[in-house]
């Protein structure tokens, strides 16, 4: 603990952290100094000059030396014994002088009116304030920092300065955003948030002097300016200049903090609920440790589906081929009696990856105890290969360090992951660290947003990543660059492992992977020289047969270089389900029980489910659905097998292809109606709170299962609330007995695990069943990035909205092009199964057998905006590899 610094502010003696600025010290001690451009967590800027103070610091001879002028407290660091005055007459009049200047270009008719919170936009104003100058017509009226500051300063607003409204047209053509630059006070918070915090630099200050204003470089659309639609600029804007378009004018009646249901980062976001019980806004919580005030387009703009009233409102029972509404007892009785006939291995339950820990726990308990089956899995468990060896190699199948620990990382090794789209907020510390000098090695055949941050972007041949990493390991061992003490003393099996890597002869590795030997040696050197390396992998582009080898290789590499739990280093397996960690912890999988306990017999999991349905092994299927899972690969597979199932029960919120085939449908609660816990990828347990409450007759999945269980004769399914379920499940999470369900804060609580480090030999076997076929001999790798400086993308107005139109550029190997008689600039067509893409051929040095395209992230945002009342994950195109063939239209 560093020593605190003593200083005096307005006669009050306080203590503050060394290195903090005066304003931060004051705020930490509950004192307020007016400010507009300062924003906690961002670098000080010193533009608004509202926070001016008088300060004097002691000199060695005991006297006090005044700091010259009126320093801004946001840029003046504290020192021992400093004396600060924040409210002298001189300062107050200076502040008022600046505020009068500021108000002279900002609508201010209502700012000091006592009716500001009472008036409606159409009321007749007795003070003759014109409509455009009213605060009541500003979307931020009730939460405007400028207004609060003016009112705190008790301004009279009788300045003789002329009022110059900018009269700029509103910018409303981009998705999700409304910008009214007439309300902008040019504090640059948004520009700094975009640059410093998000490292996107999508928006900037334009022009200068009195004309300086926020905009994009050259006035282009946000769709092509590098915007990732995270809404960080909206969250920091002190006025109504940048706001969310939807429910723009609505006021929040209630604010509830809950966990975002879209990815395993577990962003804590404060949901604004209006008086009609609609979710109107999502504002990420700055104090939350998992996301630290960050969110992404999904968490910011992708929650509106919770307001969609086109829900399944009551239980439905299929009668004469039609689903008809039924009462809860009727449906429950029917299902209970039916399921009694399918006890044992002919029953299978698929839990939702958006289920809470409570849902997962009850789901597996129901399946194992009542239905006496181990056929249980969760809907996003398609990547289990990357987890299975985690517990044997590092002791627990979860990440070894926290998200924001990535800030301390010197070198990122990112294997086949599209982090900024799949786990957006995880990308924030990565981009911040890289912008401060950290390095990144990206191993991915696709171009992703992080590729442009990479020092080494390695594109090995498809499905040879494990060989490449094996080669790197071999090279490290050859050059004796490993962290020998760590590898031999803290990890088991090192000697055996070391002798197993002789297979990875560099010339062979180079031949298989297409990466030169020098480059492999260079990578080995870079990785072993870094003091803190983090390994992140989701292995999106890798065939399931070799996922295990690849993840083994990555963990071996981390162990070899001693990068497990030290500050800045870690192993981060990346899954997609928002509560996938919880599902695993709760044993909602076919191969182990709660708390990773051993079970005698492994059940049928998601991977084998379609087959088991087809063969008749599974007769009764119980799917706790959520919209997004049906668009996934496994969802599509199961869909085809549904007809063979004798009895299908589906829990769902919206009608879809699963509910259409179901015998009984239970209306299920959405994330904003649930009370429970999620566990994020750091093993951080977050609360999910019922922000909206029940809207119809839906219920939480665990309650439905409990009622079924009770009807089927069980007596240990009597829980009155989710807290009781949590109490029962928490012993399975090591050392979480002390977690009080009611007291889980927005920062959540990480449960600790025991580490046991052990090397495992890497299987060098090549994937022989290549994903390409005779019909589709090539593989398409699709990239997606925020901005393309040299693209020919054009923005067109379609229905008054900006939209990207462009000719795709299809990159291919020159030899492949020659074989297909294609020249540079030819129009070509890429054809795959259910897939077609036309574009212009561009020949370059990519590996033979691969074609690749890179689209703008903006185009996916257009799609999400178009279907904004639906789950955004339904419209989110994952960048899988696609087997294709090339055609040249005549």
């Amino acid at each position: 603990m560093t020593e605190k610094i003593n200083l005096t502010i307005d006669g009050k003696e306080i203590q503050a952290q060394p290195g903090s600025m005066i304003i931060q010290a004051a705020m930490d001690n509950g004192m307020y100094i007016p400010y507009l451009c300062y924003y906690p967590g961002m670098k000080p800027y010193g533009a608004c000059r509202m926070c001016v103070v008088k300060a004097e610091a002691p000199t060695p001879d005991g006297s006090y030396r005044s700091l010259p002028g009126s320093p801004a407290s946001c840029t003046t660091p504290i020192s021992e014994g400093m004396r600060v005055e924040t409210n002298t007459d001189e300062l107050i009049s200076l502040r008022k002088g600046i505020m009068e200047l500021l108000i002279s270009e900002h609508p201010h008719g209502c700012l000091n009116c006592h009716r500001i919170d009472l008036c409606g936009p159409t009321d007749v104003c007795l003070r003759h304030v014109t409509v455009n100058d009213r605060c009541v017509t500003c979307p931020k009226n009730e939460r405007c920092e400028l207004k609060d500051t003016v009112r705190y300063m008790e301004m009279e607003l009788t300045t003789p300065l002329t009022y110059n409204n900018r009269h700029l047209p509103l910018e409303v053509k981009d998705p999700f955003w409304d910008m009214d630059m007439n309300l902008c006070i040019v504090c640059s918070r948004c520009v700094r948030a975009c640059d410093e915090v998000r490292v996107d630099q999508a928006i900037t200050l334009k022009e200068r002097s009195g004309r300086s204003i926020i905009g994009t470089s050259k006035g282009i659309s946000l769709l092509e300016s590098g915007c990732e639609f995270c809404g960080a600029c909206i969250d920091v804007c002190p006025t109504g200049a940048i706001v969310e378009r939807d429910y723009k004018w609505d006021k929040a009646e209630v604010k509830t903090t809950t966990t975002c249901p879209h990815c395993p980062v577990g962003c804590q976001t404060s949901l604004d609920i209006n008086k009609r019980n609609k979710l109107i806004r999502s504002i990420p919580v700055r104090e939350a440790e998992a996301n630290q005030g960050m969110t992404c387009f999904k968490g910011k703009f992708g929650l509106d589906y919770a307001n969609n009233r086109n829900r399944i409102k009551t239980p439905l029972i299929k009668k004469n081929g039609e689903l008809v509404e039924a009462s809860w007892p009727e449906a429950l009785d029917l299902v209970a009696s039916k399921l009694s006939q399918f006890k044992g291995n002919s029953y299978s339950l698929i839990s939702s990856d958006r289920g809470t820990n409570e849902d997962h726990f009850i789901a597996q308990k129901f399946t194992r105890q009542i239905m006496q089956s181990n056929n249980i899995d969760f809907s996003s468990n398609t990547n289990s290969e990357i987890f299975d060896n985690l517990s044997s190699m590092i002791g627990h199948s979860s990440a070894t360090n926290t998200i924001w620990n990535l800030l301390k990382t010197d070198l990122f090794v990112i294997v086949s992951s599209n982090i900024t789209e799949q786990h957006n907020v995880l990308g924030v510390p990565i981009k911040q660290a890289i912008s401060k000098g950290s390095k990144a090695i990206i191993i991915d055949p696709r171009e992703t947003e992080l590729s442009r941050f990479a020092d080494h972007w390695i594109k090995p041949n498809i499905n040879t990543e494990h060989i490449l990493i094996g080669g790197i390991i071999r090279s490290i061992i050859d050059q004796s660059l490993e962290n020998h003490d760590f590898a031999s003393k803290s990890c088991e099996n090192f000697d055996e492992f070391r002798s197993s890597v002789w297979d990875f002869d560099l010339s062979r590795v180079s031949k298989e992977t297409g990466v030169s030997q020098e480059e492999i040696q260079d990578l080995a050197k870079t990785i072993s020289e870094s003091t803190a390396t983090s390994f992140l992998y989701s292995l999106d582009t890798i065939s399931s047969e070799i996922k295990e080898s690849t993840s083994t290789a990555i963990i071996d590499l981390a162990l070899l270089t001693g990068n497990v739990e030290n500050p800045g280093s870690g192993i981060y397996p990346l899954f997609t389900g928002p509560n996938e960690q919880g599902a695993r912890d709760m044993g909602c999988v076919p191969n182990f029980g709660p708390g990773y306990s051993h079970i005698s017999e492994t059940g049928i999991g998601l991977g084998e489910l379609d087959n088991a349905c087809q063969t008749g092994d599974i007769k009764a299927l119980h799917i706790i659905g959520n919209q997004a899972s049906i668009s996934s690969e496994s969802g599509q597979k199961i869909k085809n097998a549904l007809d063979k199932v004798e009895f299908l029960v589906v829990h769902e919120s919206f009608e879809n292809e699963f509910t259409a085939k179901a015998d009984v449908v239970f209306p299920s609660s959405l994330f904003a109606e649930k009370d429970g816990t999620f566990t994020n990828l750091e093993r951080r347990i977050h609360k999910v709170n019922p922000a909206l409450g029940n809207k119809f007759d839906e219920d939480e999945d665990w309650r439905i299962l409990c009622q079924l269980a009770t009807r089927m004769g069980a007596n240990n399914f009597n829980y009155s609330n989710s807290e009781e379920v949590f109490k029962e499940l928490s012993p399975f999470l090591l050392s979480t007995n002390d977690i009080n369900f009611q007291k889980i804060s927005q920062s959540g609580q990480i449960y600790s695990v025991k580490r046991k480090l052990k090397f495992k030999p890497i299987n060098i076997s090549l994937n022989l069943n290549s994903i390409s076929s005779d019909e589709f001999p090539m593989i398409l790798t699709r990239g997606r990035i925020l901005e393309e400086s040299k693209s020919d993308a054009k923005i067109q107005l379609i229905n008054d909205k900006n939209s990207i139109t462009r000719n795709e550029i299809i990159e291919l190997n020159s030899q492949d092009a020659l074989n297909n008689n294609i020249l540079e600039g030819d129009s070509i067509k890429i054809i795959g199964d259910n897939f077609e893409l036309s574009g212009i051929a561009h020949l370059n040095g990519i590996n033979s057998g691969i074609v690749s395209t890179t689209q703008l992230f903006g185009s996916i945002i257009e799609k999400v905006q178009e279907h904004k009342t639906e789950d955004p994950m339904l419209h989110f195109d994952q960048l899988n590899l696609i087997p294709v063939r090339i055609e040249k239209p005549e």
Partner: protein
Amino acid sequence: MNFEELKDKADQEWNLLNDSPLPVIRVGTAMCGHASGAFRVIEELKSILSEKKIDAIIEEVGCLGLCYAEPLIDIKKQGQSRLFFNNVTTDSINTIVEEYLINNKIDTTSTLGYLGSEGPNFNEPDLNSLPGIALQERIALRNAGHTSPGDILQYIANGGYGGLHKALSSMEPSDVIDEVKNSGLRGRGGAAFPTGVKWSFLVGSSNPTKYILCNCEEGDPGAFNDKGILESDPHTLLEGLLIAGYATGASNGIVFIRHGHNGPINRTEEAIKQAKELGILGKNIFGSGFDFDIEVSLTGESYVAGEETALMEAVEGKRSMPRYRPPFPAAFGVWGKPSNINNVKSLSYTPEIVSKGAEWFSSIGVNKSTGTAIVCLSGDVNKPGLYEVPMGLTLKQVIDDLGGGMKEHQTLKLLQTGGPLGGVLGPDSTDIHIDFDEMRAAGAIFGSGGIIVGSNEVCAVDLTRILVAFCQFESCGKCFPCRLGMEHLLEIVERISNFESQDGDMDLMKSVGGTMEAGSLCGHGQLGFGPIRSAIPHFEKDFRSHIEDGICPTGSCNNPKIVPKNTRPYAQDFVVGVKND
């Protein structure tokens, strides 16, 4: 090649040039020469010479500072003094060639004077006896007009890089700093901070990478001495940077020049190239083990980029907006490395200070203002120009002796000094000496050396309006008081000059100005009220007459107004229908 060999070689070439049997024709091609057509004259000269089959050496040299006499050329025949011809045109060059080169007789009314020990060629006066030159003491501009800026050997032959050699071979870095401290040299960028003290801030830092930056943003209207030095003698700056680098332990120098100053940019880049070729820049300079490198960095058109922290932002490739301080540049400068920013003039003095000693330098000048003042004189005087004179001259001497007095039928009304943020002095100020402290006490600053002379035909309100418009246009837009305050000040001054002023406008200006002075982030905002504040006491009558009587005493406010583009707030685009481009 060590320094002695280099010096020998340079001396030989220089003597060869001076004893050349061919006539040596030197043409002043700095900014003012360029503007008045020096390059057209050279072209014409070349074609005449080739037509008449005359062999001659044509040298493009810098600027003697006599702007009123440009294009200025001088011709040296073997064994004769240099003969200077002023205001040469493409027409008169033919006569000069015909009469002087071929027939060796000339009408001396077209000549300015001679320079050289050989005495007058005819009966023309000694150039050094001209009042504008006799008062001068050229240190930073010692080579300007005499050597070719494109030839490093000419610089070396004239004592160039001797200071650096002396420092590297016989002085410790701390000795160099002491020498500069003892010389009393104060920064010529405007703030007049002692240069030696500034350098010593950088010495304390243990960071292996440190930068010495040279600021040639020079956006002040009426200031052209930095550009003059770079165009006339870029090596003196490079030598100054090298000495500063040696003294402070810096590893890199960056010369920051405003984009568009093509002459200074090209000549500095050429000079850097030549210095690198001779090993004067790079590793192990003169075998001393001292490494130093210099590069040129450019910015877009922004006056505020001349502010030291904004300059660092610009060097880093960002929008040039000032940073807050602390941390100061000496701790956290360019790319976060310790940095030290000096004006071109300050650095250009140091070679001579090191060569000739601090005592010599401090003997020039008065009081705490040692050395020379490089005055950029412009406005309503007969002989505007760039004059380097010892500190301590009175403004009267500047106007009458250097400037050749006011133009015909005009009397002195005002002096605008130190750039637009400086201040305005009235006609009673001519006894003030050029001395940093004395001028500051009088409410103006010497600043970067610009002195604009205004006659009785200049309207003080209109001049104030133009200065305020400049300051408003050049505000970077970062801090609120400057961004908004300048806009309102301009609006009010415009109201006054349009005879539309409202009650309390004077007080309003003062209150807005007061807010800016106390609240702004950088000097631009803090001094932005300067033009008005310093004009009001001297010319209150002018203001009153505009406000109360609706009359402009000089009548110039009745004419159409010069207004910089894009100074209007957005609202006015729509009101007057002007399209913003």
